Structures are given as structure tokens and as C-alpha cells.
């Protein structure tokens, strides 16, 4: 456990030291969302209509933005080999790194999203649902991203490859995440969508570390 926390702490420290990670992601998210009112026009009705989808799709793209470095830096400086040869099983190593990635990107995105919702005239009663759906959905993005990042290790143009692999897998998260916010807007029950999202999160938690660990073992061979 202390080894798990050591990896988590190191990755957070690196994210903090680089500064690039969190701030780039938040900056991209803010600007990408802010561009929409300029594009589709300022009518509140139209904005309110597209708000859930836009916020969720942009959160998804922002999370993708920082994924390519998840294992790449460790792979290049030889840390990955040393980490895999340690007493921590690779599955937990993946989980530690995905956790750090979520704290550095998914959590800030979740916290920033309600503020950006105001931009898009998202009604106040939908804000808690937006927050909850992102809180359940962004860890899935980090976990799926870990699989993509592990699979694309060492590939040229890994960022594009990663997006092509991860985006289709993230569709259920997008559908139910945006669906929950939309239900909240129109006064429908949000429970079912959030429950499915929670189920997806648990599935990802069980499957993704195993898949990513297998890909990592392959990558260092």
C-alpha cells in the first residue's frame, strides 16, 4: 500500500512540477467550451439545448489531451522497466498512475464544469447532476486512457492513435453522462443514467488495469 501511495505521490508531484498537465487541460476545456457560444450564437435556448453534450464532449477531449504522457515519460527514461520489476504488481501500478492522472486532470475538470455551465445557460438545478456525472465519468476516462496509453507506447504519432482507440470506447460514458444532465434539464429522472454510469465506472475499474498491465508488459519486452 505504501508503495502504491509512493507512485501516486510521485506522479502528482510531477504533474504539479510540470505545471503543464492540469493547467493545459483546464485551459483547453475553458476555451473549447467558450468557443461554442461564439459559434452557435448567443440564444439561451439553443445554448441550453447543446450544453450537456458540449460540456461532456469537451471534458472527454480535454482528458484525452494529457493521456499520451501517462506512461511515455516513464517508458523513455527507463523508469517503467524499474517500476514493473518492483514489488508492486503491474495492475496496481496502472491503477496508481490512473488515480494520479484523474486527480491531476479529471477532478479539476469536474470542479470547473459547473462554472462553465453558466456560460451555456445551464439551469442551476442541472449543475449538481453535471458535477455528479463527471465525478463518475472522468475516472472511466482516466482508466480507458491508461489502456490506450499503454497500447500506444513507443508508437509514432501516439497521441492521434490514442484518441482513435479511446474515443469509441468512451462513447457509453458520453451518452449516459450527457444523458443524465439532459434529463435533469427536462425534469426526467436522473437516477438510471447515473446508475449506469456508476456501473460503467466499476467495470472499467475491474477491467482496465488488467488490460493496461498486459500492454505494458508487452511494451517493455
Amino acid at each position, binding site marked *: 500500500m505504501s508503495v502504491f501511495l509512493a507512485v501516486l505521490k510521485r506522479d502528482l508531484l510531477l504533474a504539479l512540477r510540470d505545471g503543464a498537465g492540469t493547467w493545459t487541460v483546464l485551459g483547453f476545456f475553458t476555451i473549447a467550451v467558450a468557443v461554442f457560444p461564439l459559434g452557435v450564437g448567443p440564444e439561451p435556448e439553443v445554448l441550453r439545448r447543446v450544453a450537456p453534450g458540449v460540456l461532456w464532449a469537451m471534458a472527454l477531449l480535454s482528458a484525452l489531451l494529457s493521456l499520451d504522457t501517462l506512461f511515455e515519460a516513464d517508458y*523513455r527514461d527507463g*523508469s517503467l522497466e524499474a517500476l514493473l520489476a518492483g*514489488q*508492486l504488481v503491474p495492475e496496481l501500478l496502472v491503477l496508481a498512475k490512473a488515480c494520479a492522472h484523474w486527480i491531476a486532470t479529471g477532478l479539476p475538470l469536474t470542479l470547473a464544469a459547473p462554472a462553465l455551465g453558466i456560460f451555456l445557460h445551464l439551469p442551476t438545478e442541472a449543475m449538481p447532476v453535471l458535477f455528479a456525472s463527471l465525478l463518475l465519468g472522468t475516472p472511466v476516462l482516466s482508466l480507458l486512457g491508461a489502456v490506450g496509453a499503454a497500447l500506444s507506447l513507443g508508437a509514432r504519432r501516439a497521441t492521434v492513435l490514442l484518441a482513435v482507440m479511446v474515443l469509441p470506447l468512451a462513447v457509453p460514458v458520453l451518452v449516459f453522462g450527457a444523458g443524465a444532465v439532459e434529463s435533469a434539464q427536462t425534469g426526467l429522472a436522473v437516477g438510471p443514467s447515473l446508475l449506469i454510469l456508476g456501473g460503467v465506472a466499476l467495470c472499467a475499474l475491474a477491467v482496465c488495469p488488467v488490460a493496461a498491465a498486459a500492454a505494458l508488459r508487452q511494451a517493455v519486452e
Partner: protein
Amino acid sequence: MPNMPAMPFATPLPDQPFPLILRDVACARGEARIFAGLDITVEAGGLWLVRGANGTGKTTLLRMLAGLLKPESGAVLWADGQAPRVAPERAVLIGHQDALKPALSVAENLSFWARFAGVTDNPWPSRSDPFGVWALADVPLRVLSAGQKRRVGLTRLAFSRAPLWLLDEPTTALDAAGQRTVWELIALHRRRGGAAVVTTHAKGTVDGAQELILGEER
């Protein structure tokens, strides 16, 4: 260069898993057969010096002993029948890359590897500083020279619990004193029951070392 402490190791070695036995081992990378018919036994307290021209599979052999690669044929097994792949914590591999983060300081880098090896002292136990890098503790790694980075990277050996050290040309970029420290550290490690497999181009031999020359017809 401070003198090396009598016992520079942060943690005692766990129970001895030696010997590590290689029987008729062959290895291929892609289509190319790199070596075949390799028979060696790594005993407790043993030291193998692996020599050979570039591209003869020295690094590949180390990666195989570390459990990162599967042999194409033959068997690599510890005395209790475990393969390195299922017991990777028994070997520590220090390759050409130092596994250090340029954005972190020397102390932060080493503290991480110390904690990763299960050492709880913070930042890292100063008695475990065979290469004299304690003085650089707060310096960010990216400003260090290649030799200094190497020293920091090799300091990881002092924390390792692994009984088998796999060192890939450990003396590269080190000055004469640093090179001496490497060999002294290996000698101390052997005296406490550990073993090492070291690839090297350096001439000369070490007490009780066995030599493996790759790339020759056998």
C-alpha cells in the same frame, strides 16, 4: 569523494533464492537469433562479468534475467522453481537509462525509489550514500552532468532489496573514483550473500568473478 560507509545498504536482503540456473537458453529479438545454448548458474555471492562485442545480446541477457523478456527456448529458474518473470522483485536492473525524473530534485528522485523499495526513512537514509550524492540532495536532476546522474541512478542499489543485481555497463560516464565505488559496492553486496551479473567492456578481472563471453561460436 567521501569514503564508503561500512554498510551502505538501507535494508537487509530477504531469504536467499539462489542459485539462478540457466539451461540451454536461447533468445531471439524479432526474427534474429541473438544467442543460444547458454548454460550458466548464478550462485549466492557470485559475480558474472558478461563481455562481448556490440549487439551480441548482453543487454538482452540482463533483461531476460530481470523477467522483462521470455527466453525463446530453454529455462531460466530460481532454486525454488520460480521464473524471473513471476518473481521480478528478486532482481534489480540498472540499465543505460537512469530512471530519474529531470523535473525532480536528487532527494525527491531517490526518496521515491527508496519508498518504492520499501524504505520508510525520509528523505532517504544518508548512510546509504555510497556515491556521495547527498551533497546534491536539493539540486534538480536536469542540471546534473551525465556522471552525476549515473551516480544518483546507481545509488538506487543501496536501497534495493533484490539479491540479484543486473548492471548494464555501470561504469559508463563515471570517473575513476566512481568506478572504484561500483566495484566495491558489488563486493560488499556479494559478501552479504547477493550476486551480480555485470556487462562491461572494461579489461581486468575481479576476485572470484566468472566470465561469460557472448557472440563467440560455442
